[in-house]
């Protein structure tokens, strides 16, 4: 089975994240860059499926040159090879444009299954799996908390607002996973050493056949008009519990008309 796992490099959730004053795109310099946490679950699921059913795991990342750090980390977990789509013309692409560019590369590469994390911790839109399924005309198996593959048929549990749906489809398909699905492995020392020698194919937009008019900040259908830091909340009333903490809390709720 030919599995492609998508990886995004994001600013570390633990560092202060902001946008750039000039073009309101993500300020990638201000924060430490790490692999999107949910992608680690996607990589793990890809590795497990390849171990169970045979096949190869290819990492695919679209992003600036620095994203190679995240690609190497993914390779050190055990993926076989990687594709890195890197081109200044892609900067500032919105979700629709990103999905179009990635779909182009995926079609060119070929696959049985594309796996990604259910959302990135920076944009948090949670739409890429649906958009890739739309672009590629393939089954959308998103928000999976469990995956089973039998031949060419895939069964997942898809998390919903009320519980989960059991969903079935036929490969090839696009699968996004939530963090309940597995426990990602840590790269071993051997894995880290091996990752340095694994092939990473670097593609430009021209290599991938991506039309410059269809990507990038200038032609994005969405734009940021303005942004500002959220003003800090007004300091609240904090009381120590002196045996009457619950009562005081109830008094506050009553004063606010919640009870």
């Amino acid at each position: 089975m030919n599995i492609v796992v998508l990886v995004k490099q994001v600013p570390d959730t633990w560092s202060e994240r902001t946008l750039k004053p000039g073009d309101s795109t993500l300020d990638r310099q201000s924060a430490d860059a790490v692999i999107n946490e949910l992608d680690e679950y996607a990589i793990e699921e890809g590795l497990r499926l390849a171990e169970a059913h045979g096949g190869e795991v290819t990492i695919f990342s679209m992003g600036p040159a620095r994203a190679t750090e995240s690609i190497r980390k993914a390779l050190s977990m055990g993926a076989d090879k990687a594709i890195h789509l890197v081109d200044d013309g892609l900067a500032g692409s919105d979700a629709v444009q990103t999905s179009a560019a990635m779909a182009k590369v995926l079609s060119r590469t070929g696959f049985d299954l594309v796996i990604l994390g259910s959302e990135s911790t920076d944009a948090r839109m949670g739409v890429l799996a649906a958009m890739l399924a739309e672009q590629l005309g393939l089954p959308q198996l998103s928000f999976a908390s469990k995956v089973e593959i039998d031949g060419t048929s895939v069964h997942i549990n898809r998390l919903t607002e009320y519980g989960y749906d059991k969903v079935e489809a036929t490969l090839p398909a696009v699968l996004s996973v939530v963090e309940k699905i597995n426990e990602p492995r840590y790269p071993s020392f051997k894995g880290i050493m091996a990752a340095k020698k694994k092939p990473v194919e670097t593609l430009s937009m021209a290599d991938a056949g991506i039309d410059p008019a269809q990507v990038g900040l200038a032609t994005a259908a969405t734009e940021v008009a303005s942004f500002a830091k959220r003003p800090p909340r007004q300091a609240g009333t904090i009381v120590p519990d002196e045996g009457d903490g619950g009562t005081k809390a109830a008094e506050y709720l009553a004063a606010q008309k919640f009870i």
Partner: protein
Amino acid sequence: MAEILVLVEHTGEDVKKVTGELLTLARKFGEPAAVWAGPGSAGGQARLAEFGAVKVYVADGPEFDDYVVAPKAELLAALVAAASPAAVLVPSTAEGREIGGRLAIKTGSGVLTDAVAVEEGLLAEQSNFGGAIIVKSRVRTGAPIIAIRPNSGPAEPAPGAAEIVPFSVEISDAAKTAHITERVVAERGERPELTEASIVVSGGRGVGSGENFPLIEKLADSLGAAVGASRAATDAGWYPHQFQVGQTGKTVSPQLYLAVGISGAIQHRAGMQTAKTIMVINKDAEAPIFELADFGVVGDLFNVVPQLTEEIQKRSDG
């Protein structure tokens, strides 16, 4: 006046609260036209009329219930072509965002997710990076598609005709590839749904075990609230994953949020920062969650919570 399409969130005939919020918002920008996918519209019509829907486009085929997301996006795309709306509003639930995303590709438009307000010119306000940054964004090509965070605005009644307009659409085979074979509803008793609840009570690491979670549930029940949990609690298996509040979980925007035994890491704040009033109970006075608190109690939750629950019950009985 141009139409604003509002995708109705419903279970059978039961119209979800967020739909009233979306219709209320839509009235500011044009003529609210509800879009009903699947069966049940006759039973839900009155509710849509109550919030000012001028018409209700109804496509009642079984595909909308049988397949993941794609058929609803096809329906909306056909309606965008037929009605040339000024905008399309969907709920910013996981599925609503996915529908919006697919629709944006079909219509050559753009999608903005998790909007907490929409200003004149269809400028959407979003809360990014765990609530640290407030961003105002717009769609500049095609009919804007905006996913609105549930509970972020009021649902104000205003009578509308809610005229049923049957709309027939041929759903393509490509949209019928991810087949839903069974829907499993998680047990949440009589409690309201997490994302639409006016009050949410969440427990975190401080709760200590799954056996202690009934403490949180009892407090929630005394307030008619939904129960949430921090990732620490769901990762530990103390409470089911679908109740996780925060980054990689649900984003809630209730009138009142009670954080119990939750330290308030940015990952949790990302899911609750826009709550109107925040109450905190935590034994660690240094916990960052206190920065958000309108009212906080520094104390052992095992003493404070039962006392608070009892006090609330006493007051509501009396």
